[in-house]
């Protein structure tokens, strides 16, 4: 018997096995029909949902989403016609356009599906409430705290200056085949050199990720006696830059001195108190360095305002509206008021320029819903008692702000004219996840101090 079995081919064995299938006709019919019904139910419910939305006026027409496939041939066709070069180049352009359309089509189907709108929030609620599981981007911490996954990956991950890590990042090409430049050292040195040539002093200000400041909120056994968790390359970067004569304002030290929490509970960013502590210490450092000429206080004042909002990490969980798991958090803002009694405004004529990201913007940009006129630039202006200029971008700030500087120069503006200090603030995780391409700048002249009043 064994001999007979061993002579069977794998195909024969599979056939013999399948011939042994036992299922009653009724049971088999139920299994098949319920499976098909389950597949079709999603499709049918989806269309019923689309129709309901159409009759409620939420959709422009009653056409099911999945039949909207016209762009799948219109866009590539257009790309083929409009692109230049050899037929192969045009074909690849059309292919790229088609790939983009296919991705958009699939994403649209998923995001507009009733499964995503109705089932996902409920399932996410169960997992967050009972298992304390977040999702692809969110880790649930302790005491209602949420963490952004890229922050944790950065803090506990491989060193961002590790040669293997640099190599693997260089090989990833998210931007249409243009490789990422993963080494922040080279870009920071280059930017510093360009600014020094214009007589401007650069202060690099990486803002620590939340897990570095509040590790015990993620892992309860992380002892207070241990040093703050940092990416293995972080200290190397700071000491290398300092050895090169580049000024680094490491605000982790400042924030660590503060006993209370300095980060929002369900958000990636700091509390207003965190921004204020950092601004105060930074202003002290700038003064101590004697980078700016003395001038009488400009007369900036502050007033207290309370603001409530739901954190950006909580929003990523896409929980049901009524879940009540993460209520909006109330914070006390200190809005900065200009000498003319109006809310603070940036001044292009200032000798201090802040390049920043969402850490600078959170209490400044209305669209972030955490209040206005109380951001990093405002607080710095208050503590320096002088106007401050700023260029900020929420995403990929370290790269985007330099790009914007170069763009303004190309457009005939002079964003660096008259500047003495440039503060380059960015989220520390960008050191491991950002694009650090060098961006050439045109030299600009410094203006006399007398012109630097608002």
């Amino acid at each position: 018997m064994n001999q007979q079995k061993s002579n069977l081919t794998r195909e024969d064995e599979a056939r013999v096995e399948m011939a042994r299938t036992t299922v009653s006709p009724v049971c088999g019919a139920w299994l098949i029909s319920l499976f098909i019904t389950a597949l079709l139910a999603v499709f049918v419910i989806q269309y019923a949902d689309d129709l309901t939305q159409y009759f409620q006026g939420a959709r422009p027409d009653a056409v099911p989403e999945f039949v909207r496939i016209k762009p799948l041939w219109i866009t590539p066709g257009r790309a083929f016609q409009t692109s230049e070069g050899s037929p192969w180049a045009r074909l690849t352009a059309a292919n790229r356009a088609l790939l983009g359309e296919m991705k958009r089509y699939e994403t649209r189907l998923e995001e507009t599906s009733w499964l995503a709108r109705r089932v996902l929030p409920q399932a996410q609620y169960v997992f967050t409430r009972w298992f304390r599981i977040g999702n692809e981007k969110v880790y649930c911490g302790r005491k209602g705290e949420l963490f952004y996954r890229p922050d944790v990956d950065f803090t506990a991950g491989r060193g961002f200056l590790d040669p293997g890590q640099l190599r693997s990042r260089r090989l990833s090409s998210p931007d249409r085949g243009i490789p990422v430049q993963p080494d922040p050292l080279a870009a920071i040195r280059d930017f510093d050199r360009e600014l020094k040539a214009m007589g401007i002093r650069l202060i690099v200000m990486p803002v620590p990720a939340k897990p570095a400041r509040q590790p015990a909120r993620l892992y309860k056994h992380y002892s207070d006696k241990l040093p703050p968790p940092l990416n293995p390359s972080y200290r190397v970067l700071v000491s290398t830059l300092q050895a090169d004569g580049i000024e680094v304002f490491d605000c982790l030290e400042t924030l660590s001195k503060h006993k209370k929490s300095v980060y929002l509970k369900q958000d990636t960013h700091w509390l207003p108190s965190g921004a204020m502590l950092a601004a105060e210490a930074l202003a002290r450092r700038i003064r101590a360095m004697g980078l700016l000429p003395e001038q009488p206080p400009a007369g900036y004042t502050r007033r207290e305002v309370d603001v409530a909002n739901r954190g950006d990490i909580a929003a990523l969980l896409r929980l049901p509206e009524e879940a009540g798991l993460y209520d909006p958090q109330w914070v006390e803002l200190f809005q900065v008021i200009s000498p003319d009694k109006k809310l603070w405004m940036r001044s292009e004529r200032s000798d201090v320029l802040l390049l920043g990201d969402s850490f600078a913007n959170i209490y400044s940009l209305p669209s972030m819903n955490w209040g206005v006129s109380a951001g990093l630039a405002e607080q710095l202006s208050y503590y320096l008692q002088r106007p401050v200029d700023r260029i900020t971008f929420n995403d990929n700030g370290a790269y985007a702000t330099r790009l914007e500087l170069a763009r303004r120069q190309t457009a005939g503006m002079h964003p660096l004219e008259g500047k003495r200090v440039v503060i380059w603030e960015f989220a520390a995780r960008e050191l491991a996840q950002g694009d650090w391409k060098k961006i050439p700048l045109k030299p600009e002249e410094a203006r006399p101090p007398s012109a630097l009043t608002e």
Partner: protein
Amino acid sequence: MVFSSHLFLFYFLPVVLAVYYLLPRPARNLFLTLVSYLFYGWANPLFLILLFFSTLVDYVAGLMMASGAGREADGSPGLLAKGVLRRSREKWALGISLASNLLLLGFFKYFNFGVDSFNGLVTALGLEMWRLDVMLRVVLPLGISFYTFQSMSYTIDVYRGDARAIRNFTDFACFVSMFPQLVAGPIIRFSEVADQLRGRIETPELFARGVAFFCLGLAKKVILANPCGKIADTLFDGGVLGCLDAWYGVTAYAFQIYFDFSAYSDMAIGLGLMMGFIFPENFNSPYRSQSITEFWRRWHISLSSWLRDYLYIPLGGSRLGTRRTYVNLMLVMLLGGLWHGAAWKFAVWGGLHGSLLALERRIGKQSFYHRLPPFFRTAFTFIFVLFTWVFFRAADLPAAITFCRSLLGLGASPDSTLLLRGVVFKPYYLMTFALCAVIVWAAPKTWEWTRRLTWFKTVIALMLFVLSVILLSMQSYNPFIYFIF
């Protein structure tokens, strides 16, 4: 397109099944081919050119070889006689087929690797002026390793006289491109499905079993493999780890890759059954093996048997003496490793398995701990497999060595990696991990479980399907691991 995606499950699959059964039998292979091209082209339409080219070359090569083989009664090409010296036309046809497939595979899979390795070598030797400054970065077409092997098996089988050439191009294109197993196997040999391409019988029993296979496969992927993947990803990306964390991470990866890949195979087999195709088994509870030799009889069976039949045996197998046998084993496993990916870490992975296979061959295809009780044999085999998985999963060779040091408790992990414990030691992950262990070592395999479908099993299968769909809605893009090979 991914089996565990919204588009596949709720649009592609129902439409394909409905149209397939509405069409007359003669049109079904053509339809399957067309939808398989759509399925494959969804990853990148330009890849279709390669798939079609590979198909066309092998089809023509097959016909060229068969032209001298006479005809069957029904007019179809006959078998080439075995043990007869082949004519130059047949040799040329096989040569063209092998060369074109291997060139495709070599260029698209190994070009970047070759350039990087060359540059690394000349840099290490201080000959930087010899560096190749190649701007071209070649994109790896999805599933190319699978379909080139599958396609080559056809021409080799025809050449050897093991299979008849096929005249119907549609049937052959259907064999090469069949969407259930196109991008991640199992690798199907032409001889295994030749009859089924010409005529197969779809029955409700097979369809029902296919549904059960598919539901279990989806559940394995979504409920088990993905959470284990999260543990493994978190810990493998974490630099130097503590000993416990490293063992937890590599075991989670072992579970992930097994449940991920066997899930794909189950779903492929299930989809095949729904359309009347019977594919052979690809996994047979590999972690229950009591030696590495046994492990390779149970893991990715379609690849190991392909390598055995088309590489190991033609190299001489074990017929040319002991030393040559070891060399052959080592060579096959090294190439098997590189088949998985163009990186030295895969070569190390293959080399380690090759060494262990050679060692076991020396003592009669048994593990060197074969005198121990079965539990320990299984445990030690699993631990060996875990060590080799480190090379498979780590980002690169230095990272793999760092991870191995962590496994041995030799690494000084920075405090920052403690944070990861707050992420991966949550009750949900621990429960999933434990469930994986129970299924790996104590539960019946899918083939056994689906053999006799009762009402109870029907309910379980459907409940797993619904649960998987719910979980799927929470997970973003989660391709199968073997997609990148």
